[in-house]
């Protein structure tokens, strides 16, 4: 067979590039800065909901941050929560409508600073909701301030010389905390800094939503998102900067799946081992297919 099958008409008509938006977005327009990773993450979970065919029983609960402006453009029933309080609001929604798919949309400032207690208790209760964390390690909306996930050395408006562990304390690996709780059934950390990470993150959303729909427990997907504005780096440098800073600390991978808990440290060790194996293969004369 040739690369493009021309034996019959394609089953799905070709769509214009400019029309490429999830059906669950009312407009392609958004209010994010150039280079922002949040729209990429929003697209992935909205398309996952479409793929699962559960749109008409989906309810979103939005926190407060840049992403809040998607509450007007996401074509899903939505409850706006206070900063940090989305998990408890989602709890009330889900308990009254147990057959629905309920997710929260929160940032690191919202979830890990203001609402840390909320998300931990919601996870511990095993509420059948999915909390989505868009983690860029910075308060984007206020203009680039340190959050509880900012990494050591990260320069923000209130850590001008870089986050200093001695003075500012250490970042919280929120996924690790949640994975330890019995009520959590699926915990993963993805990213949107390149095509591969987007594809992996998409699978994480799917697994999380499916686990929620099976009623297994609390589910959590963290997505590292670029924020060149809040990081004070050129737009095009966002993905690289993210990989080299946040990506080195908040390691991508599944922290809890099918009952198995892996720490960020273990994910890191696995990545190092994989890389070493690749390096050795290359040294032997190339990667075997």
């Amino acid at each position, binding site marked *: 067979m040739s690369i493009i099958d021309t034996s019959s008409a394609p089953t799905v008509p070709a769509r214009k590039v400019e029309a490429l938006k999830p059906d669950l977005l009312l407009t392609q327009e958004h209010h994010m800065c150039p280079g922002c990773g949040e729209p990429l993450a929003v697209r992935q979970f909205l398309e996952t909901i479409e793929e699962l065919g559960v749109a*008409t029983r*989906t309810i979103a609960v939005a926190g407060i941050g840049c992403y809040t402006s998607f*509450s007007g453009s996401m074509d899903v*029933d939505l409850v706006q929560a*206070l900063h940090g309080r989305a998990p*408890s609001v989602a709890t009330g929604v889900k308990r009254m409508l147990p057959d629905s798919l309920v997710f929260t949309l929160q940032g690191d400032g919202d979830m890990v600073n203001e609402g840390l207690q909320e998300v931990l208790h919601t996870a511990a209760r095993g509420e059948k909701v999915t909390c989505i964390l868009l983690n860029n390690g910075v308060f984007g909306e206020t203009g680039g301030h340190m959050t509880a996930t900012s990494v050591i050395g990260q320069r923000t408006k209130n850590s001008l010389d870089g986050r200093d562990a001695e003075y500012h304390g250490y970042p919280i690996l929120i996924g690790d905390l949640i994975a330890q709780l019995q009520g959590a059934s699926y915990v993963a950390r993805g990213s949107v800094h390149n095509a591969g990470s987007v594809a992996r993150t998409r699978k994480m959303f799917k697994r999380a939503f499916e686990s929620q729909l099976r009623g297994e427990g609390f589910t959590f997907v963290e997505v590292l998102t670029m924020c060149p504005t809040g990081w004070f780096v050129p737009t095009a440098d966002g993905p690289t900067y993210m990989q080299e800073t946040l990506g080195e600390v908040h390691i991508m991978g599944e922290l809890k799946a099918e009952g198995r808990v892996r720490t960020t440290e273990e994910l890191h060790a696995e990545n190092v081992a994989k890389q070493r194996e690749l390096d050795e293969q290359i040294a032997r004369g190339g990667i075997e297919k």
Partner: protein
Amino acid sequence: MSATTTSDRVLMEGSEALARAAIAAGCRFFAGYPMTPFTEVLEHLARLLPEVGGVCINAESELEAVGMAWGALATGARAATGSTGQGLSLMQESFSELTLAELPLVIFNMARGQQDYFQATRGGGHGDYRHIVLAPQDVREGVEHVQLAFHLADKWRNPVLIYGDYLLAHTQEAISIETVAFPELPKKDWAVDGSLSGSGRSRGVTSLGVSKVGEPAMGQEGKAQYIATKIPLMEREVRVEQGYCDDAETVVVAFGSPAKFVKYAIAQLREAGHRIGYVRPITLWPFPYAAVAAAAGGPNVRRVGSFELSAGQLVEDVRIGVGGQAPVTFIGGVSTDHSGFGVGRILDVELIADRILALHEDRELPLIPGYEQYSYQIQEHQK
């Protein structure tokens, strides 16, 4: 309001009666955090709600309790939370914001005394908002008020607070939970259930004045204006009781459980020939200013007193109502038991009657026994 069913009266603790009244009103979600003297309301709902297919969550904090109720309300369910005034302090951010989101929350405040009058009627949260506040004088009225609260909350899409206390929560009375019938209310077409997701007409429950793309949005200013113009309309829900005011020379204003003591004291003083009347605000907001003004404007009125278990909060509304027609005197005082939870020494008919009579006879108010030892003495550097 009219009672439609009557069951046999049983001896029941106030907390249980309030819980059963909530269920009779269709409440199906409750979240709370234990705190004396509110705890038993939570206990009874935790036991009773699952029996009718409802949910009661023992929340991890007051902040989460009100958040959970918020979510349940957004689905159109009748939902409530509660605490004491102290616990409600923690919920104030949500209270003001969910009022802007027009969510019909019912709040059970089993307060430690009456020092939370300002909190209840003015609120501690940000922005312009008002909650309807019902202050039952006893368990029987509490059962009625709980049902009224759920009705008014839905009628106005605005929170309603029940101002109770240790006595309301813990007194056993022989009562029957009679279901109160109210006029039918519009369907909650604003509530979210996911059914319109993906239709282009999905809904949003928000305090922010934003809307879905393509629909007109109020904006923050418009939303604030919209809520501001609803407030005067809700004032028609004012409720008040008064007695002996026609020929009264002295009028006493009191609310909640203490009002029942005041009414009893005044009835006794009347028998002894003293022309004293009372006004009992049943709604603390809207406050019955007109009724207080009319009572204070009676042909024989020489003075007005405010009896309340606080350092003087209600008295400010009484002054606004009286409007200078007569001098207004605060005749209450801080009164809880030593623990701070219960009923203090002032809630005593004899003591109350003494204070009312002193006011009536223009004598100095009698000292409250045991109070002097705690009175603040001015320091040298403050003179």
